[in-house]
């Protein structure tokens, strides 16, 4: 039987693997577009060798398209880099607003597959907690994954970080009753050791329309 530590370790590896696979897929899509642009240049050269005049405006368009793809790849790799560095420290001061924004970027492709939009609202004041950024991202991902499944296609999940007297919280909202309650149950049922490690609780709010992850400070690592 898996111990709590093993469960956390396995969930972490699984999370890292899932995100890495998604990111590599996105990078491959960018490479595919760049590859076809290079191929089109070859086609144009081949046709020019055969006497067809070169359309300069088409060459300019290829340059613009390649630059667009480089920017797209840069955005993907920047998110990947921030995600990778979230595992640098077992516990450090973490901005919950920034972390939820990072989670949104990581989850965009999964959200598109679910047909769900994810929005994040920046908190009016920074919400800083001392926690494991990677562990918390993992927990928030599990909740978001459940929320996306519960809310269904054409819907939205909104993530909001808030300061509390105990530390901070993240609300998953905009999905309708009785979704929140079942989402909380699924999230908690999937993993119990991770919330314990983070000194966090995951539960539906009293209206059962929001899923709330509460972080209580003085974490136990």
């Amino acid at each position, binding site marked *: 039987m898996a111990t709590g530590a093993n469960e956390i370790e396995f969930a972490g590896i699984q999370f890292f693997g899932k995100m890495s696979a998604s990111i590599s897929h996105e990078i491959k899509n960018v490479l595919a577009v760049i590859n*076809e642009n290079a191929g089109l240049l070859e086609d144009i050269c081949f046709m020019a060798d055969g006497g067809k005049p070169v359309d300069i405006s088409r060459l300019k368009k290829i340059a613009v398209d390649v630059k667009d793809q480089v920017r797209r790849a840069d955005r993907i790799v920047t998110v990947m880099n921030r995600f990778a560095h979230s595992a640098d420290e077992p516990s450090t001061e973490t901005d919950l607003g920034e972390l939820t924004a990072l989670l949104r970027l990581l989850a965009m492709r999964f959200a598109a597959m679910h*047909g769900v939009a994810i929005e994040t609202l920046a908190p009016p004041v920074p919400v800083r907690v001392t926690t494991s950024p990677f562990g918390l991202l993992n927990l928030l991902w599990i909740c978001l994954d459940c929320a996306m499944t519960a809310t269904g296609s054409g819907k939205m999940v909104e993530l909001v970080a808030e300061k509390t007297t105990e530390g901070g919280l993240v609300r998953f909202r905009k999905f309708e009753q009785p979704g929140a309650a079942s989402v909380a149950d699924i999230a908690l049922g999937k993993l119990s050791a991770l919330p314990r490690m983070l000194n966090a609780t995951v539960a539906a709010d009293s209206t059962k329309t929001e899923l709330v992850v509460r972080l209580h400070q003085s974490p136990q690592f």
Partner: protein
Amino acid sequence: MTEKVLIVDDDKAYLNILSERMRNRGMEVTTTASPVEALRIVETQSFDAIVLDLMMPEMGGIEAFQRIKERNPDLQVIFLTGNPSVSTGVDAMRLGAMDFIPKPADLNELTEKIKQAKVSRAILVEKQAQAKLKKVLTEKSR
């Protein structure tokens, strides 16, 4: 005769550049970023091959493939995907896809597969025509 191809991929930048290169090679290309739209297109038009992205919003490539095959069992489908895992390719082939090409694709290889698809489809159509003719002749000889 030119090859008639439908490309289905949610990455519009890829869709545009790939279709341009295929048209430069003399193919007749229809594109859509929506697998749902692709289902509508195959209802009214015939193609020698469909190039289908495996992972798309709205509907996964496998589901789209199954629904296309239900209505048009002769259609030859080539999967194209950024997911390079062997198991994904094996799954696609097991379901009856003609081939599976990882992105970034080699256009010469893809062109070759499309030409093969056209031949395979022509053989299938010919066989069906012969079977139909045989059936009619058998019924008439009774």
